[in-house]
């Protein structure tokens, strides 16, 4: 038993939080994890932080991390909002496949000389995004109006969506040559890959949308207690439909990024396991699967943690088969550090030794 004044001092220190800093803040652990991984990467590969300009394009591991993470960051934006409403969206990977299949099938008509306006590249992109939005609307409808559990509601599209994408491309993996569509995945502006701009734009846009209006607050309240929100006059069904639709749109954009990178649409493999990566990133970013408080930038940080880890494994020339194992272990470590129960368990462990 400690003397009273010391206990009081401890409480005061805990309250002080030094400019918002607290060891109990999940953000601290996420940032720490990213910094540690980057430092380890730097130790493995001395020129890890170097960025060169080659042919008007910035080249370097850090740029690679951002570029490689872009598709999952896009997914994580929608996924964060969905999880904040106590939902989950398992279908984003297949929505990526559907959107890219739609875009590539239409753009190939355009390349083949079809003149109708809906084959124009700009319109094709819009149609692909609309396809994603429709998928999201469907999920939202099932969750909000039919009261189906999110995991099952989106499982329906996860299973049938790949079939739909394969039906669109007739089981093929068509390639394309259109530069406008490819620009989304491999374009460069001022030396920086276009997907990075797209991610930043979406992050800022959605953050403004949820934080400069009441929507963010409503999303959190629906996630914490849907029934109470309903009695407080919030149309939680509409909020849910909105977040699932946004998730569909984000997934469609991610699908276009991936299709643009490889200049083809692969209905079998595109976005496979992407939903799991996105969910992991959101959880690492500190959004609880039980809904409520969320932070889009921390989710993006979660993606960067995973991506820098994978890039680090790549530069360390460790055998690439070890990727999944290391990923699982690091993810588990980050999650354990975030768990209050695990930290108090560690504290007890050390106290016993002392």
């Amino acid at each position: 038993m400690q003397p009273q004044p010391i206990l009081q001092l401890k409480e005061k220190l805990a309250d002080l939080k030094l400019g918002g800093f607290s060891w109990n803040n999940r953000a601290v652990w996420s940032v720490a994890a990213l910094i540690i991984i980057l430092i380890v990467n730097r130790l493995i590969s001395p020129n890890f932080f170097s960025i060169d300009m080659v042919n008007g394009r910035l080249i370097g591991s850090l740029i690679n991390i951002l570029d490689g993470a872009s598709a999952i960051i896009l997914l994580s934006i929608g996924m964060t909002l969905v999880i904040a409403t106590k939902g989950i969206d398992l279908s984003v990977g297949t929505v990526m496949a559907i959107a890219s299949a739609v875009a590539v099938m239409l753009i190939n008509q355009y390349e083949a000389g079809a003149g109708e306006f809906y084959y124009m590249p700009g319109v094709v992109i819009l149609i692909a995004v609309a396809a994603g939005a429709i998928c999201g609307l469907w999920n939202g409808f099932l969750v909000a109006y039919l009261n189906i559990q999110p995991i099952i509601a989106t499982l329906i599209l996860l299973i049938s969506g790949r079939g739909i994408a394969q039906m669109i491309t007739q089981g093929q993996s068509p390639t394309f040559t259109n530069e406008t569509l490819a620009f989304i995945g491999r374009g460069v502006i001022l030396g920086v890959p276009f997907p990075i701009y797209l991610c930043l734009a979406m992050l800022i846009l959605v953050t403004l949308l949820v934080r400069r209006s009441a929507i963010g607050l409503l999303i959190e309240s629906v996630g914490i207690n849907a029934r109470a929100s309903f009695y407080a006059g919030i149309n939680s069904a509409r909020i849910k439909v909105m977040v699932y639709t946004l998730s569909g749109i984000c997934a469609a954009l991610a699908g276009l990024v991936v299709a643009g990178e490889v200049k083809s649409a692969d209905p079998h493999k595109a976005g496979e396991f992407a939903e799991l990566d996105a969910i992991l990133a959101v959880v690492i970013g500190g959004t609880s699967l039980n809904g409520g408080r969320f932070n889009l930038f921390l989710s993006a940080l979660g993606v960067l943690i995973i991506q820098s880890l994978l890039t680090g494994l790549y530069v360390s020339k460790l055998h690439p088969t070890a990727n999944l194992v290391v990923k699982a272990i690091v993810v588990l470590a980050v999650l354990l550090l975030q768990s209050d129960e695990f930290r108090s368990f560690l504290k007890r462990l050390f106290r016993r030794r002392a």
Partner: protein
Amino acid sequence: MKSRAFPLLMTTLVFALLYLFCLTQYSSFASMRVVCNLLRNYAYLGIPAIGVTFVILSGGIDLSPGSVIAFTGVFCALMIERNGMHPLVVFAIILVIGTLFGATMGSIIHYFKIPAFIVTLAGLFLARGGAYVLTTDSISITHQFYVDVSNIVYVFPDGGRFTFAAGAFVIVLLVGIFLAHYTRFGRNVYAMGGNETGALLQGVPIGRTTITIYALSSFLATFAGIILSLSKRSGDSTIAMGAELDIIAGVVIGGTLLTGGVGYVVGTFIGILLPGVIHTYLTLDGSLTPWWIKIIIGVLLFGFIGMQMLLSSQFNPLKLIRIPRRAAA
């Protein structure tokens, strides 16, 4: 009509109708050949699905079975072919490893309060990654024991081959039904899924039960990996990719509620075989392209969920007019 068994009854009815329909189209559905093939081909999904049923009944979820199956197959192939160990010894080792793997996941879920979805997701990556680390080659197994096991078969008069895998599936199903409905463990699982706090107050050992459930699920996934290894006579690290979702879909089609507490092990059996019947039909038909089966399974899943929603005890047709408000509350 409002009984908890109703979803199961409906699933059984749909299964029977579907089978009858197939029977009118192709008389071969009446043969033991089709039945035995179904059991044999779906054993590797059905066996872990019975474990996952317990997990879902308790209100949890397990995403790792597909990866555990792959890891088991690769481990068996490597140990038998490269290290020259006897298959039975290898099976014993891998079953212990698998059970410990599940127990570890269960412990993390229980003691550190990390959602089961995320823990078993990490388990999915770990087991699949483990399989990749062991080898990315496909290794065929030529051990005499494998040949002997494949000769254990009961041949029906019409040529249907009731193989070892089919037998294992049926036995696991029976043991699963016994565990769920005639043991204290089964009672505890249902109690936990119904209301965890309530169960705790009633004296259900939540921690021990949670760990046992996940250990059981991984044990059965490992067992399924052995069965698949025996019938494929090879180990391949990319096998059973995405099987976890087929398994969960099967459990849900079988009438088990994802919220826990409601469901039957035998429902899972039907839920797993249902897509199998459709697949068999499409194969016999030959004119339908493979992507249709995915779409049809999705539609079926939707149909079953919708039916469960409509027929659940809370449903009141008059309230349909005010759907949005119902959804909100």
